[in-house]
């Protein structure tokens, strides 16, 4: 990114950035991109919920209470209780932790992995590039289900394994996009110059190529965050994700919810709302971020 500079005039001292500039920037963001700001607000709310879960949750997450089975939403239990008498609001609050954690870590891992592969593939070119491309194609064509099942059944249903299962499909998508940006960055004359001077490959990649792929990288990352949460929900729904009695939103929708939907509709409604709201927030924010970073970027997903 080019920063406009000019030599200092005699006697001039560099000015410190006024403190209210930061708030001003936020205010500007809210005014120009209200949707993005709304998204950011949702994300912040979710993060706070996740972090302060122990403080704000009204009941215990795991305790079974026979007397309270299937109570509808009331003053004592705002969102009702489930088939074991556990408070739904509490489980949704703790579920935010899981969703956020899984979403962030898996999309970050996947996007970073994909970016690294994309940069290497573009830089090294030739046969290596071709083979890596084929490998990415295979990963891309692979149904997520089979992959997730394999990982989960071999390694077990745990959160780290789920993260791996969700991260893997992100890799080829990121690699593709990053690779095309890296390809055009490679044509840049700076790269030739750096190689001529004798910089190592790694240095060239790091100093010249990577900065140019940051924009698409960030875009993919934010785009994948929401989708990672959805994937976790879908996998838990299909019985490949988190295991009972973990309070993950997707799991809450799978077990009792469809079966008890007529008797206790609140079981089916609230976890789904939570998922939708979270993904909605991430998507809104991600969209505006992408607009801000580079509105001219053509995206072939």
């Amino acid at each position, binding site marked *: 990114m080019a920063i406009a500079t000019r030599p200092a005039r005699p006697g001039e001292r560099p000015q410190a950035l006024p403190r209210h500039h930061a708030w001003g920037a936020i205010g500007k963001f809210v005014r120009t991109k209200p949707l993005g700001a709304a998204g950011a607000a949702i994300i912040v709310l979710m993060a706070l919920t996740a972090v302060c879960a122990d403080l704000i949750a009204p009941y215990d997450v795991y305790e079974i209470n026979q007397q309270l089975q299937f109570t509808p939403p009331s003053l004592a239990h705002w969102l009702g209780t489930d088939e074991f008498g556990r408070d739904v609001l509490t489980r949704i609050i703790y579920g935010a932790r899981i969703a956020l954690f899984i979403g962030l870590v898996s999309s970050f891992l996947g996007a970073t992995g994909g970016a690294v592969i994309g940069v290497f593939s573009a830089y090294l070119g030739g046969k290596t590039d071709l083979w890596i491309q084929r490998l990415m194609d295979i990963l891309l064509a692979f149904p997520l289900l*089979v992959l997730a099942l394999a990982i989960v059944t071999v390694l077990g249903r745990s959160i780290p394994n789920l993260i791996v299962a969700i991260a893997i499909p992100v890799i080829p998508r990121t690699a593709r996009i990053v690779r095309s940006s890296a390809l055009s960055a490679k044509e840049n004359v700076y790269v030739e110059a750096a190689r001529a001077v004798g910089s190592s490959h790694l240095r060239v990649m790091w100093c010249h190529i990577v900065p140019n792929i940051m924009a698409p990288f960030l875009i993919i990352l934010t785009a994948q965050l929401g989708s990672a949460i959805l994937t976790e929900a*879908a996998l838990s729904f299909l019985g490949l994700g988190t295991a009972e009695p973990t309070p993950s939103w997707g799991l809450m929708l799978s077990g009792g919810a469809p079966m008890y939907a007529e008797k206790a509709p609140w079981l089916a409604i609230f976890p789904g709302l939570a998922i939708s709201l979270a993904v909605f927030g991430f998507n809104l924010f991600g969209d505006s971020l992408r607009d801000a970073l580079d509105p001219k970027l053509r995206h072939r*997903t």
Partner: protein
Amino acid sequence: MWQYIVKRLLLMLPTLIGAALVVFLLMHVVPGDIALLIIGGDQGGDINPQELVKLRAQLGLNQPLYVQFFSWLWGVAHLNFGTSLWTGTSVMNEIMIRLPLSLEVAIAATVVSTLIAIPLGTIAAIRQDTWVDYVVRVVSIGGLAIPSFWAGILIILFLVIYFDWAPPLEFVSLFRHPWENLAQLIWPILSVGYRYAAVTTRMTRSTVLEVMREDYVRTAWAKGLRERAVVVKHALKNAILPVITIIGTEFAFLIGGLVVTETVFTLNGIGRFMVDAIAHRDIPVVQTLVLLIACVFVVVNLMVDLLYAWLDPRISYR
């Protein structure tokens, strides 16, 4: 042109074989096999170890891995996709019973969503930053945020409570009873389609926006052409290309993503078949299905690229 197509088709082969191999290895790495399930039965009762060994031999599971894989691959070359370990009937047969339904849902969802999405996205782009635009954006982002199985559950709940609806038991063929068939399938189609529509709307909107900024469009405006002429004749024609890419890619993913919809709506399609086959460790079926999905994926990509070239004369392929 033809050379290019042939080259692409040839390049397809390693991808497909690679995918099949990966699946094969995965299915063997994963614990448990079909013999356990057959002998164990519903509750996994008594498992007689001698019978287990016998059954494994009968199903060919005790042969070395490379033999199993290459004999399957050899069969594939002759269009024989093997026999299901669970039922003993041909895999192709089993798939053909279920494929039409899934295809119908997938294609109908594509058509419906495209018909909605392109006009909607275009209007949102033209009226950028007005309330129309905001509504369309919020609705489409919202659409992306809703998990499809949740939408399915809610739809069913709604139908059951307010309309005393029950899922259909037998699906009539589209060709013999078109209206009845569509009435049965409308809910899964909507369940799958709204998401598809959301993605396409967003893409349409952003590409039309970009194109609108291009010089030739601005020239058209300056010339005093009416809005419709500008949009349809100039902007849309060029904006359509990335949209087509998205429609194509999403379709390929759709086939794999039918799983949840078919589970929720009890459709006897290949998505659910895949889930069952994996649960049963019915290896030939899983391999064939993965091959099928990978094939669809690659072919759709190829078609999209060709369409691209045909629509945009600037692009040519060596």
